[in-house]
């Protein structure tokens, strides 16, 4: 690890100002950034910790929405969102191990947008709104491919608002080594229709499976998906699974999510 400065601002404004500095970078739980720095693959000059920023930690629920502060840990979401949005809490509870969940944050996860990460599927599958120090971004506009988002370089995810669906479930098929999602599917049933978001599978990162959404919006039963196949050509192929296998898993995990959502 190279030397760096560390600052811990207490307001969003201070944090934003600190991020203007040369080589400054936001630090959430550090579960992605710190290992990268230890391997000397990243060398920020200043780390701007967000976990002490007022208003960025915590969960609030009301008006059919659950809002999670950008620096809220996975563990907190797992326990505190359990009654307001059980599927979201369950997803957070399946991320990594206890150490990762007690440090890692939703803002860090969404900013990083790892193609195998869990949270992006919840955000896209719920049609969440991602609030930053500058604007609100609809999830549909936010995710722009592997490790790519709509965020500007110095933009801070301050909170994420999830409309709470009538029924939802996240089904994660574990990559056996890392236990990230080899394929994870988030299904959410809203009065206006069903959303299906898939993570882990595609070379373009998280995406919505629109054919499945249409079929499920007509009839919210796993059987409604029986004839659907997703094209494998844009899927990831690696040590742990071929494109064909991932495409197949998208179908299986979607059906399981529908069954689990009930």
């Amino acid at each position: 690890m190279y030397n760096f400065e560390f600052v811990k601002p207490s307001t969003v404004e201070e944090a934003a100002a600190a991020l203007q500095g040369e080589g400054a970078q936001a630090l959430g739980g550090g579960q992605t950034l710190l290992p990268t720095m230890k391997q000397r693959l990243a060398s920020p000059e200043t780390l701007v910790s967000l976990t002490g920023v007022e208003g960025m930690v915590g969960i609030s629920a009301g008006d059919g929405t659950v809002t999670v502060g950008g620096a809220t840990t996975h563990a907190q979401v797992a326990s505190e969102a359990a009654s307001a949005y059980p599927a979201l809490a369950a997803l957070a509870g399946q991320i990594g191990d206890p150490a990762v969940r007690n440090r890692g944050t939703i803002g860090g996860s969404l900013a990083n947008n790892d193609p195998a990460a869990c949270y992006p599927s919840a955000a896209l599958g719920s049609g969440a709104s991602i609030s930053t120090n500058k604007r609100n971004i609809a999830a549909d506009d936010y995710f722009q491919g592997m490790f790519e988002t709509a965020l500007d370089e110095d933009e801070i995810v301050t909170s994420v608002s999830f409309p709470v669906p009538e029924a939802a479930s996240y089904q994660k098929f574990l990559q056996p080594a890392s236990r990230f999602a080899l394929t994870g599917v988030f299904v959410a049933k809203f009065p206006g229709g069903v959303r299906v978001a898939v993570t882990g599978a595609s070379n373009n990162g998280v995406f919505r499976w629109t054919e499945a959404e249409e079929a499920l919006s007509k009839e919210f039963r796993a059987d409604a998906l029986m004839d659907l196949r997703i094209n494998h050509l844009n899927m990831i192929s690696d040590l742990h699974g071929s494109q064909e296998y991932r495409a197949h898993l998208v179908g299986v995990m979607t059906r399981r999510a529908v069954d689990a959502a009930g």
Partner: protein
Amino acid sequence: MPKDSGIGASPKRREDIRFLTGTGNYTDDININGQTYAWFIRSDVAHGTINSIDASAAEAMEGVLKVFTSADFAEAGGIPCGWEVTDRHGQPMQEPKHPILAEGKVRHVGDPIAVVVAETLEQARDAAEAVEIDIDELEAVIDMKAAVAEGATKVHDDLTSNLCYDWGFVEENREAVDEAIKSAAHVTTLELVNNRVVANPMEPRVAVGDYNRAGDEHTLYTTSQNPHVIRLLMGAFVLSIPEHKLRVVAPDVGGGFGAKIYHYAEEAFVTYAAKVLNRPVKWTSSRSEAFISDAHGRDHVTKIELAMDENHKFTAVRTDTYANMGAYLSTFAPSVPTWLHGTLMAGNYITPLIYVNVKAVFTNTVPVDAYRGAGRPEATFQLERVIDKAARELGMDPVELRRKNFIQPDQFPYDTPVAVTYDTGNYDATMDKALEVADYAGFEARRAESEARGKLRGIGVAHYIEACGIAPSNLVGQLGARAGLYESATVRVNATGSISVFTGSHSHGQGHETTFAQVVSEMIGVDASQIDIVHGDTSKVPMGMGTYGSRSIAVGGSAMVRATEKIINKAKKIAAHLMEASEADIELKDGAFSVAGTDKSVAWGDVTLAAYVPHNYPLEDIEPGLEESAFYDPANFTYPSGAYICELEVDPETGVIDMLNFTAADDFGNVINPMIVEGQVHGGLAQGIGQALMEACIYDENGQLLSGSFMDYTMPRADDMPMMNVDHSCQTPCTHNPLGVKGCGEAGAIGSPPAVVNAVIDALHRAGHKVEHIDMPVSPARVWKAMHG
């Protein structure tokens, strides 16, 4: 009533107090005044020519003491190989030089090129980035068969090809085996891969070199399974330091599994650099570094043919194996696919004719050497897989086909056609036990229940044999070992009766400090708390060949028994003198000597005190003091065996395997500490199941290790493991060592992979999928592909 001490009891492991409370003394815990830090610059290409190394900028950086390259080791020898294999034609294997730091060429990703030594680790790393190394990348040789094809790029320019040796065993049987296969009633053939794995002990390798100028004395602290072997190899062959000037200490070591047997470049480096710099030098491997510098295991590609007559009796076995050596010959690498593998191809069965061909191949990958089981898992896997396939082809129960060919209890000692003689065994007994514990008979009902839930249930059986207690020195000498494989022990009885046992066996998780003390406690009758087991330091222990090949209790324990017998004999003489009785009448029981037929007795402590305060002592007959040593060289290997049964479910939608339970019925001969034996089997099973289902060390065609971290290399975790039912009630004691023990360290890793794969294939067949084989690791993706084409 179970005993609470001595042989057969299960006292808690005394060493665990320090391991579990953070008070162990591991090599990385050793910090010496004035210590400096080494950072190895390793090749990031698999094969290349080094054009230049410019360290001038780095050497000028703050805190840097020196940047070392191969030029600094012009006087040193290469890292030696400890075993020479002779090929089918009587020629010695090809043996390339293995330099401490790359000379002119790099040959695998991770090959060390230069080392920065600085005041702090961060300074060393900073400076390493300033070392300019210019390498022309060459074509990498990765696939074994391509490596030995005509015109292949050579890993070593000075060798004639990438073929290390072409070994045939038993060569004289070659034609007879061919003939038997041609004329057999039935031949079953199977091609399979024994996947390459990374040992990944919890503690990565560490080495600290220290030098005392006044006495010209070197000390190496290192994570080793055999410090004396390192002293011998490094002192005699690499750095020319005589034994009395070189101390090697392997303190607490956090797991080895084979990977810490070998002499590594980093050990020679820190020892040498400490003298050059006149400062202690420390190197601590990171996990990423371990993946590309610790010797890997397994990596065989095999075709096996099993021939049978019309009565389903085995008539011949023929195997054809490619074994990966990696880029250099690691310490025991050549022996693994040959003498530790070919000699086990008879398994538990009567097979009159066997021929094993092994082509050992150099590739641009990390060297491969022994890993828990070493050669024996490879033999067991192919044999137990092909028997299962044969049973299916013949429409027979796989258990019945095995039983039909088992060596029978009255046939021991049994000479196999592959040079070894099994002393004892009862394979039907272990098979019966396993079937009983696993409720084999009730399987069909359980399968139907799984089916009702949409799951495919399968059951797999394997019966293994291994050769442990390695090994008779005269025999291994004939087979090419460049070392003896005896063990030594010194038993020092102190004046007050407490005992220090110095053993050449090394404990790196096995619990020797507990079990060895149990044995001495049983023999003398003093409480185990009075007995200390000392190991891992060449300045304390006279000699030691170390711990591997499940040899500690069988060989090291035997040496300790012999030394303890000498102690008892001498103590009896002293006791006889004290009680004015005849030595022949002296009995030792529960820590006291008595005269047979009388009520005269003298306590252990009185005798030991007399030995050191010899006021009333038979000085004309014996010397004062009570310390004895013994070397023990085994007469034969030991042959643990056992039946393993795996039961699992396959999810037909995803290929995910749910391990339901695993039964191991082992025959380890006599057992010293049943709890520790169970733990050893659990650990072995975890590694065997890990190899079977999860662990894949995979290189791409350019020689980059794709599974180079725990993000991609699936280390088994506790929740991946099934319920393990471990039984060791079947005991046919070893006939040629004093404790009648066989060793238990590797069994789990040897017997489990075929049981697991057999169970998967069984599950698929019962569901109508005619899948004959899936290569390990049998991952969900591979199962799904096998089911769906």
